[in-house]
């Protein structure tokens, strides 16, 4: 295995990658530091993995120390404990309900999250588009939406539970209220940034106000909407977990706050990792959608 890492052409006894690392750090043409650094592909991967490995190592080291003092330590569970907990939550049927808890939690949470995000994105797109394009709409609604966006959504969570009940609606509404003003404002700004020449050009081609909004501006704004959703996904998860922590009978946030009572870090940590992976996966999905659905967007003129 090691032999393959050696250069096939030169009989060096020193592994090539090690040589490369040394050169990278000592060579006068910088590959690692400075603004002219050009980390190669392999080195790039290695650099990206470095902080992850460091964090993991740090955790394992700390966990090991605690377990040496107390084999039943719950605060920093060892990988084995977490694997057991994960197996219990993900692959074993709950005897009481007959479901797989983690799958059930994931489905419930995703349903709430996607409903809230979709509603916020649709409303934000529609409102932002009209506010960006029509001065009358902007004059009427801009100050109001700006005002709304300054309300901390979590502060009105009690109001939501009181007015929409403790069922799904309140949780969806929290995500909606948290995201929709931001998406609206982002879309409005994006519409304003379209070159005025385009609007004039469309008018000389016979576009009505409606055609202008929905045939010229809307398709150009859709990729911006995807970007806006990507940026607000983190906030959406925050609102979801908060709402589930307070009132729910399933969901990823519900489970985390339920097992917190038993200091069950061995469940919480895999759940947190799972949520992170879900969020990362969604971001990746949206990125691909942007690339394949809007090929003109990444290379458009002047940006």
């Amino acid at each position: 295995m090691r032999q393959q890492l050696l250069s096939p052409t030169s009989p060096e006894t020193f592994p090539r990658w090690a040589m490369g690392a040394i050169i990278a750090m000592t060579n006068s043409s910088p590959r690692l530091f400075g603004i002219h650094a050009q980390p190669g592909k392999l080195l790039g991967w290695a650099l990206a993995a470095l902080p992850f490995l460091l964090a993991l190592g740090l955790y394992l080291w700390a966990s090991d120390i605690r377990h040496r003092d107390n084999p039943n330590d719950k605060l920093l569970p060892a990988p084995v404990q977490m694997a057991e907990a994960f197996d219990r939550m993900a692959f074993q049927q709950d005897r009481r309900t007959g479901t797989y808890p983690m799958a059930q939690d994931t489905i419930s949470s995703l349903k709430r999250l996607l409903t809230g995000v979709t509603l916020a994105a649709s409303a934000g797109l529609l409102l932002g588009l009209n506010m960006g394009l029509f001065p009358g709409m902007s004059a009427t609604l801009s100050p109001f939406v700006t005002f709304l966006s300054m309300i901390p959504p979590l502060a009105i969570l009690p109001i939501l539970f009181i007015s929409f009940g403790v069922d799904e609606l309140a949780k969806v509404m929290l995500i909606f209220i948290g995201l929709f003003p931001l998406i609206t404002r982002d879309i409005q700004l994006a519409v304003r940034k379209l070159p005025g020449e385009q609007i004039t050009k469309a008018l000389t081609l016979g576009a009505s106000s409606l055609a202008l909004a929905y045939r010229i501006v809307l398709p150009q704004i859709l990729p911006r909407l995807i970007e806006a959703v990507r940026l607000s996904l983190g906030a959406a998860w925050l609102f979801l977990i908060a709402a589930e922590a307070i009132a729910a009978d399933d969901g990823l946030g519900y489970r985390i706050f339920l097992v917190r009572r038993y200091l069950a870090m061995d469940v919480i940590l895999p759940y947190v990792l799972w949520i992170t992976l879900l969020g990362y996966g969604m971001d990746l999905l949206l990125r691909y959608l942007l690339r394949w659905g809007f090929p003109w967007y990444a290379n458009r003129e002047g940006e």
Partner: protein
Amino acid sequence: MDLENGLIVEDVYKSYGTKVVLDNLDLRVRNGEFCTLVGPSGCGKSTLLRLILGEEQPSAGRISLNGKLLGPPSVQRGIVFQRYSLFPHLSVADNVSLGLRLGNRVSAKEARAEAMQYLERMRLAEHAGKYPHQLSGGMQQRVAIAQSLIMKPEILLMDEPFGALDAQTREVMHDLIRHVHRLEKATIVFVTHDVEEAIYLGGRVVLMAPRPGRIDTVYDVPFGDRRDQDLKHAPEFLALKREILERIRETSGMKTDLEQLQRLSGLAEA
């Protein structure tokens, strides 16, 4: 000259606050004419074009086209800007056929067929399926011209359309737009700051002067319709170019700047 038809700009005055941008401006452009507006920056040539286009309204005076007073931008007028004339999310063919589709006057198939005809004429047929960003600057402007022409506007306005192109591409575009002008019998108002371009393209060159923006001189270009690149080196062409450049220097105050510089650096001859 037909008194009713064509573009008529009468006593137009435009100010932003107390700043007068266009002062008492009169201009007539006959149907079928290729009229170029040239002048130093700040002479109001682009403002005048925006007024004709309808993006802004004159503070006083009236602008009419074929007897109709002009309002906000409409299908009466076509426009080619220096940039951003094309819609980045539409293919070349869809950009050109967009005007026909927006009017809903023809089916998608007919619109596409007609767009292809125009693209053929602009030698862009093989690029019909591409997005604008995949084309060179010159090609993009050709698409923009086709996109405007397909609407058969009463007047085609061009705002420094070749200003961002390299010199070679610009020469090709000059011959192309002259060809299009003769073929389509289009009425064109063309704004540029390049005097050579203004003379080569225009049947008339309207020289504007700054502070406040006004029409200084109108030059009839005596070279008729048959022009080629060699004309740019002909003595008559160069003489007219020299005359206009001289006049621009006089009206824009660039001459006094040079004298002042020479005085300051002790190079004045007297």
